[in-house]
């Protein structure tokens, strides 16, 4: 009986992509994909998605460990807060970032006045927006793994004389690697597809803030064929990343 809903689910995911493939103008594909604007958008997307994935890992791993290991009551609230970017419409996320880091935002104002740094309309803003929306994916998958594993290995490591930092580095992190791998892939995919928060917080300028999804939207205004071609490119990149990284991350017991 499962095959009916399973088939429907698959159809829901696959058929729109098939529709996209059917509408692609293959004759013009090479020309559309190698235009300056497309290449700039692709390069920018790859660079920013990689950077925000790195940020997600550097900041998300400690956060997941704190959330999974802490027993204080406030942590329950924190856990809900961390998930917020998952349910928040990305545009609202972008607005929230503006209210924090924009020229009139309290942190943005401080940065502007003290250091002369302005975040909006920069590539930094793109990375921040992507990290904001992608971080929960990493934290959630890591926290699940951490809770599943418990802290028995860490306790043993402590009795063997390992200091907390050594325990984290030599036990916690290696045990987390499979979950870290799949979490990072999810984050990367989410960062790559990020649109709403980026366009709201960072704007859209070729080579600086116009990532591939923004370029797709931009092209859709003028030339649907070009938008379709770019969307296809986005799909190919995402599929390659997931196909290459995910199985290894999920099955590769260290």
């Amino acid at each position, binding site marked *: 009986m499962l095959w009916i809903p399973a088939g429907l689910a698959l159809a829901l995911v696959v058929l729109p992509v098939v529709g996209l493939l059917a509408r692609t103008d293959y004759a013009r594909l090479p020309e559309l994909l190698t235009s300056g604007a497309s290449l700039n958008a692709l390069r920018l997307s790859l660079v920013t998605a990689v950077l925000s994935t790195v940020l997600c890992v550097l900041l998300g791993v400690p956060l997941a460990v704190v959330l999974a290991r802490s027993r204080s009551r406030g942590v329950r609230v924190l856990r809900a807060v961390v998930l917020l970017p998952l349910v928040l419409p990305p545009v609202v996320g972008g607005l929230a970032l*503006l209210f924090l880091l924009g020229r*009139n935002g309290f942190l943005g104002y401080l940065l502007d006045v003290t250091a002369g740094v302005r975040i909006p*309309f920069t590539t930094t803003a793109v990375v921040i927006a992507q990290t904001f929306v992608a971080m929960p994916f990493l934290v959630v998958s890591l926290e699940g793994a951490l809770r599943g594993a418990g802290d028995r290995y860490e306790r043993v490591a402590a009795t063997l004389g390992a200091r907390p930092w050594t325990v984290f580095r030599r036990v916690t992190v290696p045990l987390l690697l499979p979950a870290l791998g799949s979490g990072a892939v999810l984050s990367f995919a989410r960062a790559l597809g990020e649109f709403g928060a980026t366009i709201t917080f960072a*704007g859209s*300028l070729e080579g600086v803030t116009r990532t591939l999804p923004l370029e797709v939207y*931009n092209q859709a205004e003028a030339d649907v064929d070009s938008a379709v071609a770019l969307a296809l490119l986005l799909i190919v990149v995402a599929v390659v990343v997931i196909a290459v990284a995910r199985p290894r991350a999920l099955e590769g017991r260290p």
Partner: protein
Amino acid sequence: MRKLLPAALACVLVASACGTSAGDGTTTLNVFAAASLTEAFGALEKQFEAQHEGVDVRLNLAGSSQLASQINEGAPADVFASANEKNMDKVMDAGGVEGRPQTFATNQLTIAVAPGNPKGVEGFADLAREDLTVVVCAAQVPCGAATEEVERATGVTLAPASEEQDVKAVLNKVRLGEADAGLVYVTDVTSAGDKVDSVDFPESERAINEYPIAALSSAGEPELARQFRDLVLGEVGRKELTRVGFGAP
């Protein structure tokens, strides 16, 4: 269960696809209009419904190019009011327009600034100032195309911080204080009220944007479609459009 599910699914699909005439005797008129027409067409919708008993006007407001794509993909539409000729041409080329489209309004660019114009922007040439964060529309959308035209005509080259996807996004960046100035349409500043001020500049005459309207050949209610088009083109339409800042054709 095995047979019920696909049947139910088909019902849902059909119900949403075939909805021109509702069962209770009211007739629906689908009007696809550019987002910048929200306010004016909202008023015209009420007037039209008051004059035509049993007619429900449904406004589908979005970017003109989106609307054109939707119409060409077969969305149920009776009237199309576009913010530029290019998108009307797309529908016309596909054979979707009944008769010839007619221009019913014009719009031109203005500079949106924070209330009170704190940066002292005086004209288009000022937008090239290095101390200003300027935001414009992307060249692919009508306001961006108009901006490029003005740039060409004046020889002033802008270095915008961002090329936004539509006029509202440009206006929002100015409203939030992230941008010092943005190039938008006169009507947008009118609808934003006292949240922004505008600085008009004579060079905007060089890129007047014309709004065409047409009844569509696929219209389910061709007679009503013509009547709505005529309302927009007539005196009542003129009055509402002027009220929100549009120019006469």
